[in-house]
């Protein structure tokens, strides 16, 4: 599986230049859909959305609609949302509970484990020809449940999800685990879906560790919208990390995170001023977490992106985003907001209100991101613009391998995460083996450096 695109010229991670074409050209878009989204592990949803047998949630994987479903026996499946007969979507509700998915077109029906059950006039029209067992809904060959989250890949040869996730797991855990350190235990309290007229990789890259874009959020930092803003504090979050060392870490599989490595001795930083119950709750969680996790409690999460298109915010706010490409210049963005399912009602209420004013198209912080991504995309489509690559030379070489924590660790703001991400991206587009995609091949590692 080779490509005609001159990828190595266009993505030169060693020199720190990347062609604008990968953000705007239909050819790259097509290659991504065929070679990247058909192989990589993608986030599909959360088990809290489908707690009971028969529950379903319609999600997306890249450009395609999929059904996340818990069958009547309790097993979780992900199906392509398209009838095997003429392709009609078998489900156009966003979520619900059912015992059958009935296609509106010719009424073929499927059970919650994907099996074709009902074919109208079967005996008269199909007897002896149609073997129903061969015409189930198309199901992902690889599925993994991790601490409530559901992930899938269309590639039967894909490595298991934990190998794919690699050492980025320590950071993802900080998003998915209870605030007091118990494993898992989160729930989705709501979902944003919106269209942004920008290339999806701008969004992924933003979360991957682009801390350099902080000035674009000056307006919220000036006025203060954080959990303590009602008490007069400026900024867009509480400062939980002021004693920690910020770290930007990249991984051979293409993931990148921005976290904070706290000192050996560190104490709870009060927050949520004006909400004493919430502050007390987080203080309690902080100490419990330290007891439970020991040294690992020193990792506190900001943001990250799990290759290719699942981003997260770790604490303030807290949730997962997925960037689904519609075209080179249009993306469907989904955000899943998370809280601990057993958090007190007052805590959940303060958090959801903060999430809403911070995040997404109605969020005061992220509106400015959307503006940047839109006009960065638009201003890169021109013939002249596309002759000039983007600059990714920030903090070249300024990282150390496995420094305190695993991964390629930078202690200064860096584009190393992005250089690494696009290097892995290039390998997908060249159709490399899984060994190379996981960064196991020596050539791959050298290229990354």
């Amino acid at each position, binding site marked *: 599986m080779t490509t005609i695109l001159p990828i190595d010229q266009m993505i030169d991670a060693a020199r720190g230049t990347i062609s604008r074409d990968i953000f705007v050209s239909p050819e790259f878009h097509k290659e991504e859909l065929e070679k990247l989204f058909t192989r990589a592990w993608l986030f599909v949803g959360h088990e809290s959305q489908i707690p009971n047998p028969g529950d379903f949630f319609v999600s997306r994987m890249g450009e395609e609609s999929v059904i996340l479903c818990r069958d009547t026996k309790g097993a979780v499946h992900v199906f392509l949302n398209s009838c095997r007969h003429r392709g009609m979507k078998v489900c156009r*509700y966003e979520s619900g509970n059912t015992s059958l998915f009935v296609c509106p077109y010719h009424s073929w029906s499927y059970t919650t484990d994907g099996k074709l059950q009902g074919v109208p006039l079967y005996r008269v029209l199909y007897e002896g020809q149609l073997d129903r067992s061969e015409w189930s809904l198309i199901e992902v060959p690889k599925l993994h449940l991790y601490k409530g989250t559901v992930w899938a890949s269309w590639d039967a040869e894909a490595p298991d999800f934990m190998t794919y996730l690699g050492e980025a797991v320590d950071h993802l855990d900080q998003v998915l685990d209870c605030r007091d350190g118990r494993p898992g235990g989160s729930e989705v309290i709501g979902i*944003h*879906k919106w269209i942004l007229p920008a290339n999806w990789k701008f969004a992924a890259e933003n979360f991957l560790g682009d801390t350099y874009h902080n000035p674009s959020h000056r307006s919220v930092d000036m006025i203060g919208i954080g959990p303590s803003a009602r008490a007069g504090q400026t900024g867009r979050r509480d400062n939980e990390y002021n004693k920690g060392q910020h770290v930007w870490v990249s991984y051979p599989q293409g993931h990148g995170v921005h976290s904070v490595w706290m000192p050996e001795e560190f104490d709870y930083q009060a927050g949520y001023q004006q909400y004493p119950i919430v502050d007390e709750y987080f203080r309690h969680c902080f100490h419990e977490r330290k007891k439970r996790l020991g040294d690992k409690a020193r990792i506190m999460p900001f943001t990250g992106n799990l290759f290719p298109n699942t981003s997260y915010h770790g604490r303030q706010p807290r949730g997962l985003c997925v960037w689904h490409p519609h075209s080179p210049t249009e993306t469907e963005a989904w955000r899943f907001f998370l809280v601990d399912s057993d958090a007190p009602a007052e805590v959940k209420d303060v958090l959801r209100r903060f999430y809403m004013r911070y995040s997404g198209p109605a969020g005061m912080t992220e509106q400015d991101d959307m503006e940047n991504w839109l006009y960065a995309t638009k201003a890169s489509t021109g013939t002249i613009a596309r002759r000039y690559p983007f600059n990714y030379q920030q903090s070249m070489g300024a990282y150390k391998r496995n420094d305190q924590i695993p991964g390629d660790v930078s202690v200064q703001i860096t584009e190393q995460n992005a250089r690494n991400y696009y290097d892995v991206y290039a390998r997908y587009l060249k159709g490399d083996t899984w060994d190379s995609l996981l960064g196991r091949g020596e050539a791959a590692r050298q290229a990354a450096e």
Partner: protein
Amino acid sequence: MTGRHTLSWFALKQEVEDFLYMEADLLDQRMFWEWLDLLAEDIVYFMPIRRNVKFGQHAEKENTKQGEGISWFDEDKWTLGKRVEQILTGVHYAEEPLSRVTHMVSNVRLLEVSPSPEEATNVVVGSRFLVYQNRVEYETNTFVGRRIDTLRRNGDSWLIARRELILEQNVLLAKNLSILF
């Protein structure tokens, strides 16, 4: 409330319509602080997210609910004040340069009047909105939906005590909701 009405009912309806048009004009003229003055201190400003649900489940599941989970807006006067403050920093790039906005308000109906049209202190008014936003050069959004406002008498004028905005979209087709409704 349909049927035959008294003159005082029509007078009240006209007064309420004038108020809504004046309020819309303040937003379109970018007189944001003056607009905030029309909001009651305890205002609820709510725009649910709409979902595609099976027939028969609309009342229960179509719209996200105020006071729980995630909606487009579920906020109070403090947060709306922050939105105004942010626009007026001059560095809120999603509204810098400022969008051009026109609020059309129509289908105005008095849904509840208390205690009476003559002495009304509380009015629930239904309307439709069509909000046109154009920003920078080519970016244009049209937001259409229903609005249910609760107005509270304030001397010669009114205060908006509750605004519910039912936007007729599922996936939001605009990149941002950076304007006020």
